[in-house]
């Protein structure tokens, strides 16, 4: 177990390094270097001063080394557009994205597993076809467009929900303002969980121990919910790890449509303003979050299913 954890941890560190290298060198490929990403109204002297201050006159490799050393100490540099530390700008946005992400995962997992079981139990009946059709639609609709349509229906026509913002202090307002973003985000993650639960259920149900428990005369409900489900859900844990990057990509779009001040919105603002340090910082933080959550998912998975350790 310990060996597995150490191995996975080492892989995670390598992954994070790869992403920082790709992002850092991509940034420095910009025609004219990162100085071209500063505000367009900066004068030549300002440019030089900033370049000097940021150490942009050093070779790329040296700069990457410096950046890495600082990053390990939690210092991602200063935002070029506001002058505040990048870390602070990211951290003030994180709770908002976290709020959306946690709710989306909870809803996707609970509803997804329920629909997946239903779909498997009613295999090739109309319920199965409806759920399957719905899943394909959910994966095919552009989420930003669905969000606009939701605003058109629920905010403009019906006036039930606010079209943007995070709402006020009251719990009710927070609920109504996060309802649409969470539903939209779920459309990208829910279908995958439904499909995965369904095929996992069907696979388990065809195994011998299920036949045995049916032969023993157990009630169908006991067979499905206490024997089959417990085994079918193990692989579903692993799919959550896969969904986290997709979910975070989704927040970029959903936060932009709903004016939600999370990190997804932040990277778009940073990219529009060509705020080199901020774009780099957000990408790195998001990657670290994804890799750590994958790491945790893998550890849980290997705990629940001892077979994984031998393969991992």
């Amino acid at each position, binding site marked *: 177990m310990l060996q597995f954890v150490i191995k996975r941890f080492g892989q995670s560190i390598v992954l994070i390094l790869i992403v920082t290298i790709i992002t850092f060198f991509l940034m420095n490929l910009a025609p004219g270097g990162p100085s071209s990403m500063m505000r367009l109204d900066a004068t030549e002297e300002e440019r030089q001063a900033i370049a000097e201050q940021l150490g942009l006159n050093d070779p790329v490799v040296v700069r990457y080394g410096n950046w890495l050393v600082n990053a390990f100490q939690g210092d991602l540099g200063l935002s070029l557009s506001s002058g505040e530390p990048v870390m602070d700008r990211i951290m003030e946005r994180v709770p908002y994205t976290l709020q959306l992400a946690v709710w989306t995962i909870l809803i996707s997992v609970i509803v997804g597993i329920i629909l997946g079981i239903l779909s498997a139990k009613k295999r090739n009946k109309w319920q199965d076809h409806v759920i399957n059709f719905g899943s394909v639609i959910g994966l095919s609709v552009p989420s930003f467009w669905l969000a*606009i349509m939701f605003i058109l229906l629920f905010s403009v026509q019906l006036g039930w929900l606010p079209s943007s913002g995070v709402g006020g202090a009251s719990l009710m307002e927070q609920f109504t303002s996060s309802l649409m973003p969470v539903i939209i985000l779920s459309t990208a993650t829910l279908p995958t969980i439904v499909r995965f639960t369904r095929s996992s259920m069907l696979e388990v149900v065809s195994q011998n121990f299920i036949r045995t428990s049916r032969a023993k005369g157990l009630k169908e409900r006991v067979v499905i919910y206490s024997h089959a489900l417990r085994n079918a859900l193990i692989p579903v844990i692993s799919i959550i790890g896969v969904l986290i990057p997709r979910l975070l990509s989704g927040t970029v779009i959903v936060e932009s449509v709903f004016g939600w001040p999370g990190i997804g919105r932040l990277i778009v603002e940073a990219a529009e303003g060509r705020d080199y340090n901020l774009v780099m910082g957000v990408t790195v933080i*998001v*990657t670290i979050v994804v890799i750590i959550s994958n790491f945790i998912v893998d550890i849980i998975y290997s705990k629940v299913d001892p077979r994984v350790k031998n393969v991992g």
Partner: protein
Amino acid sequence: MSQTAEANVKGENVIPTSRFRSFFRQLLKNKVAFSAFVFLVVIHVGVFLGPFIWTVNPDAVDPANALASWSAEHPLGTDDLGRDVLSRMLYGGQITLLVGLGSMIFTVLIGGLIGSAAGYFGGWIDTVLMRFTEAMLSIPNFFLALVALTVLGKSPMMVVLVIAFTSWMEIARVVYGETLKWKETEFVEASNAMGSSSMRTLIKHVIPQTIPSIIVASTLGIAWAILTESAISYLGLGIQPPTATWGNMLQNAQQYIWTAPILGVLPGVAITLVVLAYNFLGDGLRDMLDPKHLGK
């Protein structure tokens, strides 16, 4: 069957061709996939031939006639700058569909190369390439795509390349699995025994076997590419106006949602239908390829 056997005696490699023929025959049987296929043909033909019939310039601005509703002159009305929406839908569709197809081609090239090389050569090549593939799969690629587009520019070609470089991993894994499977077969062994170079065996005998799986994965990949393009265009970080795409037509739609909701509905419906059709076609093709998958 006899045809295949006969051709094999002659030493011709006809396995892919006969497979394609039965592929198409099976496609006819799968109603959903076939309808999706027909719909896609109609849309592609319509979008590319439409402008020969509807010859209005998609970039002609007419501010006096902005946000007009439908009329004989503008069957789908005009947008915020008074441009003809029908014409922009047609030209925008061309770019959107071409970005989808183009991204798919590069995705297949990159993914196919990495997957087949890793599977066929094995050893450290396998370890390095597949670890790299896993790494790319587990990072939030959308963020990387935004970074790349910010830095490298936003031309249609750049959008195609960025989408391809952030979404080749699925194909690489599919091709990798197939290559591992086929490289153990007798005809590959025979080819090696006859003294073919490993490159020749890979290209002539192993890669052709992986084509059906690549077709399935790339059909689903087009759907993904179109969705990605529309999302980055919506964010204003993709292909820039005045060049229309279905995605960037939606960029301003939110602003006019109160005055001209049709502007927001139309491109979205178009994207959804095309993506839906590619997804149904891909799912259908997979069922045909792997009957075990049916109803699973």
